């Protein structure tokens, strides 16, 4: 007989169940979905960063053979409400000015790439041809590219009906900051800048919509949040909710946050399908994608730290200016990310007195869209690198400064109101230093220096969110934070799990099945996971923010536990024993009585009775074996720690640097599948290295984007990055049924401070600091030559 522990699936590095189809080239991505009679959309986008549209001439395009329709902004706007309906506007206090948004520009364009005209044609080649025939006359307006310029009271208003260019302004913090600064032995005061970069996935956005008068609108879209999108579509387009079905494809080619918003194109494609009564397909091309999505970060921090001479941080003041672009992308409006970056600014440190003033300013660039390490990338850079600068200034070992300030007691609530649930942050930090062999590296550094080689070691903390409970999420995004799942045992004793989230490579078909297999004592192959279709899955707020392992898996576990109560009653009845439920073990597809394990019933028999032969059920019991659960952790939010460390060698002549080692000590509570966790960490670090060293969305003074191809926006290839070492340091959280937490979302966050501190340590020259991202050989060379 197999024992329970032998059949345990959680914690095992099994290979993924989604992989066979992907490896065979049989994945189903949005680009692979084409309905009979499909038409294709190509968008004509603004070539100006800020201009009035004087005239649009579409005649030639309309007459081009194969063109089905040419549509401009007013027509689309007349068919719907302004897109920012109340249910998708965050309520974060402060002062918010809300732009009016429609899918296509009407009389003004606000950034290069702003969509103006939609061409719909019989095939995509024709649509692209005809797009070249549209003539648009512009009257250029002054372009605002610099958020600090845009803040000035005399600068032109991008949204003319606003009183300033500030989309959101507010303050966060708590404690007696004045006192902390009065009592400080040393005050660090620096301006840090985290540039515009982000997480462009390999698959761009895409949508296929169809409409008929009876079933209504069906939208296939590679969205991270199909349920939220469905709700918004119904409200904006004034269609009854039952006539809007959103389906995320089985396979999505990465998202990292960028596919979470409600984009203008989403509404446009729906409108076109409704207008034409033919399926409409739009696949964003890479150039559009680099001009529109995945642009994040872009924060200036005027950060001040009040420090005691032993390195203890007494207080923090920060004035943050975020460049949110045009601020017109739904749900987040470009400001929720910097807000969260501010709320999580103090990271894994115990800083009781904090005051943060955050201004989110609109400019003539595309709206910020979420990118993994949501708002935190520049914030982590400023905070953790500042601690290293403090150590240098006070002649302390940065290791001591970190240790002194790291949160030690849990749960811990930051001065900005963020709850850290549990963990051992100091333990993880010490494990990193051991893994780096810190003392030996410092020794080697001295030796190397004698030979003219500059070696340095650096580190940073990353406390990443692991889902956010409704307590916070309702205010933040006007949406629930719970996880939800339905578990059904079918007529063949197979287990179906339905989740309302829609993964993009995270491996839910494997991890959720691992958790459910343990709960129900079945084999992983007995489980199938369904997701993506809003007509068939419970409401959920989407696959984002590390919600999967913390919230969604927990909901699936709770749903199993609800079912188990019923199953045990049926088992007791069939076995003819008097038993309270909870007296059975679930293993090997059997339900076994703990008191006498010869008394057992197979799950198949129970399913058969409950579904096919309900006459055999205990009298009065309802037929069927299915349960839905909504999981809410009994705490405002959970975080999981990742401590990053790097050893680098810098060439002082060129500013170039080589990462000799990159190590991450990682906690995700209980890893459901350690191999998948490692994969998340590797990918997150490399994305962080890309963002720190190679990737930057550059704009010239006229607001023209200079990085619209992957040649110019350089995502790292295998040859650009080092090996990443991952060390597990897991502390189960008491707040989820299995102790699991999410992992992956925040991993890029600690990378820039890790590399900046390592490079600074290598250079080791008084006054040398790296206050601006990205950290390119050029920027380092400049910093080196500035302070000479």
């Amino acid at each position, binding site marked *: 007989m197999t024992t329970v522990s032998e059949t345990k699936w959680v914690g095992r590095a099994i*290979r*993924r169940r989604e*992989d*066979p189809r*992907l*490896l*065979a*080239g*049989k994945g189903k*991505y949005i*680009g*692979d979905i084409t309905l009979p009679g499909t038409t294709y959309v190509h968008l004509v*986008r603004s*070539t100006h960063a800020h201009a009035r549209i004087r005239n649009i001439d579409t005649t030639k395009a309309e007459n*081009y053979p194969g063109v089905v329709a040419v549509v401009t902004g007013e027509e689309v706007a007349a068919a719907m409400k302004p897109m920012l309906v109340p249910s998708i506007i965050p309520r974060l206090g402060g002062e918010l000015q809300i732009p009016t948004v429609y899918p296509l520009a009407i009389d003004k364009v606000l950034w*290069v*790439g702003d969509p103006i005209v939609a061409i719909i044609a019989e095939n995509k*080649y024709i649509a*692209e*041809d*005809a797009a*070249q025939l549209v003539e648009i006359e512009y009257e250029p307006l002054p372009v605002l590219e610099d958020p600090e310029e845009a803040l000035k009271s005399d600068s032109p208003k991008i949204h003319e009906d606003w009183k300033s260019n500030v989309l959101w302004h507010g303050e966060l913090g708590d404690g007696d900051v004045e006192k902390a600064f009065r009592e400080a032995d040393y005050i660090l005061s620096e301006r840090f800048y985290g540039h515009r970069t982000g997480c462009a*996935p*390999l*698959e761009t956005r895409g949508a296929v919509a169809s409409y008929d008068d009876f079933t209504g609108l069906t939208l296939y879209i590679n969205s991270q949040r199909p349920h939220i999108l469905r709700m918004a579509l119904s409200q904006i387009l004034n269609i009854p909710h039952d006539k809007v079905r959103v389906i995320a494809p089985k396979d*999505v*080619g*990465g998202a*990292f946050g960028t596919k979470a918003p409600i984009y203008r194109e989403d509404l446009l494609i729906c409108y076109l399908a409704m207008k034409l009564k033919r399926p409409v397909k739009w*696949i964003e*091309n*890479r*150039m559009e994608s680099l*001009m529109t999505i995945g642009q994040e970060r872009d924060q200036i921090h005027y950060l001040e730290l009040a420090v005691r001479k032993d390195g203890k941080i007494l207080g923090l003041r920060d004035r943050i200016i975020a460049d949110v672009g045009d601020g017109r992308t739904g749900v987040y409006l470009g400001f929720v990310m910097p807000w969260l970056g501010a709320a999580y600014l103090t990271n894994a440190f115990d800083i009781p007195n904090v005051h943060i003033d955050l201004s989110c300013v609109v400019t003539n660039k595309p709206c910020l869209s979420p990118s993994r390490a949501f708002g935190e990338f520049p914030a982590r850079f400023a905070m953790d690198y500042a601690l290293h600068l403090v150590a240098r200034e006070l002649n302390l070992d940065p290791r001591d400064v970190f240790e002194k300030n790291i949160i030690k007691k849990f749960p811990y609530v930051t001065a900005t109101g963020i709850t850290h649930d549990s963990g051992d942050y100091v333990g993880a930090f010490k494990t990193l230093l051991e893994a780096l062999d810190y003392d030996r590296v410092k020794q080697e550094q001295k030796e190397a220096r004698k030979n003219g080689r500059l070696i340095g070691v650096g580190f940073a903390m990353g406390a990443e969110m692991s889902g956010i409970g409704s307590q916070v999420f309702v205010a933040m995004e006007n949406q629930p934070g719970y996880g939800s799942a339905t578990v059904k045992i079918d007529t063949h004793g197979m287990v179906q799990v339905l989740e309302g989230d829609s993964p*993009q*490579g995270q491996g839910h078909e494997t991890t959720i099945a691992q958790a459910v297999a343990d709960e129900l004592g079945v084999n992983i192959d007995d489980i199938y996971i369904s997701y993506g279709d809003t007509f068939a899955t419970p409401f959920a707020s989407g696959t984002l923010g590390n919600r999967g392992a913390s919230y969604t898996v927990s909901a699936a576990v709770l749903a199993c536990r609800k079912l188990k109560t019923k199953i045990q009653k049926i088992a007791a009845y069939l076995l003819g024993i008097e038993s309270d439920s909870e007296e059975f073990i679930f293993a090997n597809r059997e339900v076994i009585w703990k008191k006498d394990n010869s008394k057992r019933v197979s799950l198949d028999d129970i399913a058969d009775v409950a579904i096919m032969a309900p006459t055999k059920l205990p009298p009065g019991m309802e037929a069927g074996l299915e349960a839905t659960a909504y999981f809410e952790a009994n705490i405002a939010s959970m975080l999981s720690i990742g401590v990053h460390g790097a050893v680098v060698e810098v060439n002082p002549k060129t500013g170039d640097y080589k990462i000799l080692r990159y190590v991450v000590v990682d906690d995700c509570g209980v890893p459901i599948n350690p*191999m*998948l966790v*490692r*994969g998340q*960490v*590797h*990918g*997150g*670090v*490399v*994305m962080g290295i890309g963002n720190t060293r190679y990737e930057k969305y550059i704009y010239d003074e006229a607001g*023209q*984007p200079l990085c*619209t*191809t*992957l040649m110019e926006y350089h*995502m*790292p*290839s*295998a*040859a650009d*990055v080092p*090996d*990443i070492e991952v060390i597990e340091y897991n502390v189960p959280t008491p707040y989820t049924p299995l102790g699991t937490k999410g992992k992956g979302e925040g991993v890029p966050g600690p990378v820039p401070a890790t590399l900046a501190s390592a490079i600074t340590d290598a250079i080791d020259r008084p006054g040398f600091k790296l206050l601006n991202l990205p950290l390119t050989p050029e920027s380092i060379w400049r910093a080196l030559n500035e302070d000479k």
Partner: protein
Amino acid sequence: MHPLQDVQKPGVEGTKTIQVRVNGQIYKREVPIRMLLVDFLREELGLTGTHVGCSVEGRCGACTIVLNGNNVKSCLLLAVQADGADILTVEGLGEPDNLHPIQEGFWEKHGLQCGYCTPGMMMSVYNLLKVNPHPSVAEIREALVGNICRCTGYEHIIEAVQYAADRIAAMPKEERDKLFSY
């Protein structure tokens, strides 16, 4: 030139009949002369395992195939240029119950997350292992510069390639040759 004015000349018309062998099967089709090879594979032949990740710039590698023994980016060729060619796409690499060792390596070592880069990536690995059965880590990294993966950080991809190389090295020569017949 402005990126948005990167025009394709309208009115490129005409078709041509081409014959290609894809994954061992011969196809004869009349295609528009300006149709990209990647669109031909995906839309005409329904082989959607070959992906598109960039705007025909040849940078992302998601569309990589093997054509007459060489790795090519199928977004950079016209279908008519492939007339007479012998092509391998991911669909021809292995069977679901008889995976190619490269596919096994990716599965075993978690060399994919979203899977979007994977078909193209495996095509590059195919040509690497064909000529270099025992690549070093540095050689693997170099061989994959034309394929961007945004999810995995490459670490597990490298392990996947090493796993495949070991599996293949343990096979008798005839079997090995069969694995690399393109």
